[in-house]
């Protein structure tokens, strides 16, 4: 625990979880997430590289195994604002995406699918290593204003406007077509986002500016799969979960809401369901659950016969 209270705050959140649970268990969801992000790129590359076609296209719109269409609903809406009604495949693809993220959490897109997440996580990690202060303070609501601007610009110019700058699709396109290797849009825009997050504003892009994340957050307002602080009574206020959370305002209402009669489930649409809080908690306070188990009585007290040494059964 001494390592955590260095002069510059929590420098190694999760150290006590590693000591308690072992390295692998303390990085379980992080590893799963990196694997998922990796898979979202690799399934598009097996075809062009080895002739094994799994998914074609990119994050904007794709076709998996020749039958499953997926389309970014934000593209569909921009096209609509620009005056184009898309055809059946795109409409079906967007509907599937909306339903899926309304189930697993809207911003699970950010944590589990978006390739930019790994870039900004790297910037944040490096920022901690270099001991940089938070930098330019941005409001989280900026991304919603940007989203509104994107729609307005699409309508005014008759184009899918965000695609001129969208780092999400540009990076993914660069990765699945190999154009990232040239000094083209994918490399430049990704570098800009990385450097912005590293040197200008901590977690600036994903947490404050990205309108794609803001849009998926809106989809996930009523999403089913949620992180629950179901053993919040065991919390020892070590602050590790706050230190690793990219949207740290979402935790407190669930973790510390007992006195106000709040349930243990993190209900904010800003939560990305990354599960890092579950990883770093040495007291196994968090786990994945659903929004339907959010009565204050759904949180167990520590003496409830739950063996604190054994990790609880996973729900999701």
């Amino acid at each position, binding site marked *: 625990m001494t390592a955590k209270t*260095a002069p510059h705050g929590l420098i190694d959140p999760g150290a006590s979880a590693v000591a308690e649970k072992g390295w692998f268990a303390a990085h379980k969801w992080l590893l799963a997430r990196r694997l998922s992000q990796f898979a979202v790129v690799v399934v598009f590359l097996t075809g062009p590289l080895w002739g094994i076609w799994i998914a074609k*296209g990119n994050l904007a719109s794709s*076709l998996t195994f020749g039958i499953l269409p997926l389309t970014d609903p934000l593209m569909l809406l921009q096209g609509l604002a620009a005056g184009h009604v898309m055809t059946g495949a795109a409409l079906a693809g967007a509907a599937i995406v909306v339903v899926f993220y309304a189930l697993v959490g809207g911003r699970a897109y950010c944590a589990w699918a978006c390739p930019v997440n790994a870039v900004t996580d790297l910037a944040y990690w490096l920022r901690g290593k270099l001991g940089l202060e938070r930098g330019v303070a941005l409001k989280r609501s900026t991304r919603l204003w940007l989203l509104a601007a994107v729609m307005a610009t699409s309508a005014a110019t008759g184009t*899918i406007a965000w*695609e001129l700058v969208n780092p999400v699709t540009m990076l993914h396109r660069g990765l699945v077509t190999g*154009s990232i290797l040239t000094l083209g*849009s994918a490399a430049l825009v990704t*570098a800009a986002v990385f450097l912005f997050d590293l040197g200008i504003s901590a977690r600036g892009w994903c947490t404050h500016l990205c309108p794609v994340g803001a849009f998926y957050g809106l989809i996930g307002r009523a999403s089913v799969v949620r992180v629950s602080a179901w053993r919040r009574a065991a919390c020892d206020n070590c602050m590790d979960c706050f230190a690793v959370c990219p949207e740290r305002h979402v935790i407190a209402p669930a973790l510390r809401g007992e006195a106000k009669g709040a349930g243990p489930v993190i209900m904010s649409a800003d939560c990305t369901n990354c599960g890092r809080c579950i990883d770093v908690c040495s007291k196994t306070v968090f786990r994945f659950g659903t929004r339907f188990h959010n009565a204050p009585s759904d949180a167990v007290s520590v003496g409830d016969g739950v063996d604190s040494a054994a990790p609880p059964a996973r729900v999701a």
Partner: protein
Amino acid sequence: MAGRHDTRDGMTDPARRAMLAGAVKGACAVGVLGALLAIPAHRRAEAVALRPPGAIAENDFTAACVRCGLCVRDCPYDTLKLSDLGDGPALGTPFFNARAVPCEMCEHIPCVAACPTGALDKGLTNINNAKMGVAVLVSQETCLNYLGLRCDVCYRVCPRIGEAITLELSHNTRTAKHAFFIPTVHSDKCTGCGKCERACVLDEAAIKVLPHVLATGQLGKHYRLGWEEKKKAGQSLVEPSPEVQVRGMEGVEMTPGGTYKLERRPDGGFKEFKP
């Protein structure tokens, strides 16, 4: 784990930390601005790039295309590419460069079938009706056929030989005994596939496929071609010209068309004209 933090002791000097942080921040700001500046810096003189078959009008296309690249993936000849900085078309949209790889005009048009958004119109079922652009013989000064030779390569490779490109004969006055075989594009038949541009034997193609907007003129909407209208109506739609009296021709009889009936004299002149 404890050993990891020992190295930090050397960095606890606040002045050193502040200097390091300032340097990193400055370098990052330079990097962000540099990367953003590099994007417009890539822009070259507008390249002429062609859209895949079935692409809807350019203004609508940028509202419909989500840049997914499914058309590119399903193109069996690697003709289509997604645009990047400097290519010309809107970033991420599909295009092809005819001189590099022309469109092979697949019978089943897989690129159109792959498009999920309608940016490529599913109504295009016969590839011969594609309108990707129009071939234009832009360099009459270097085209070998214009120089009087029988190259004919553009004509020979055209998938619609004899329809989209014909060879029009005219007299070669330079040799006085040969003919020019002038490759002539018919825009209503040309699909813009670009095989002619690809095949042109010159170092720089004399025939190039251009987008319709660059390649074709447009008559004013009010223009009517008199001879076409006459054919449709079965007769001339304009009144015969009124008779205009010409000085010195008084008393000479005029036809209804407005021509004088002149009488030829035995010496070859006309009776009405005084020598």
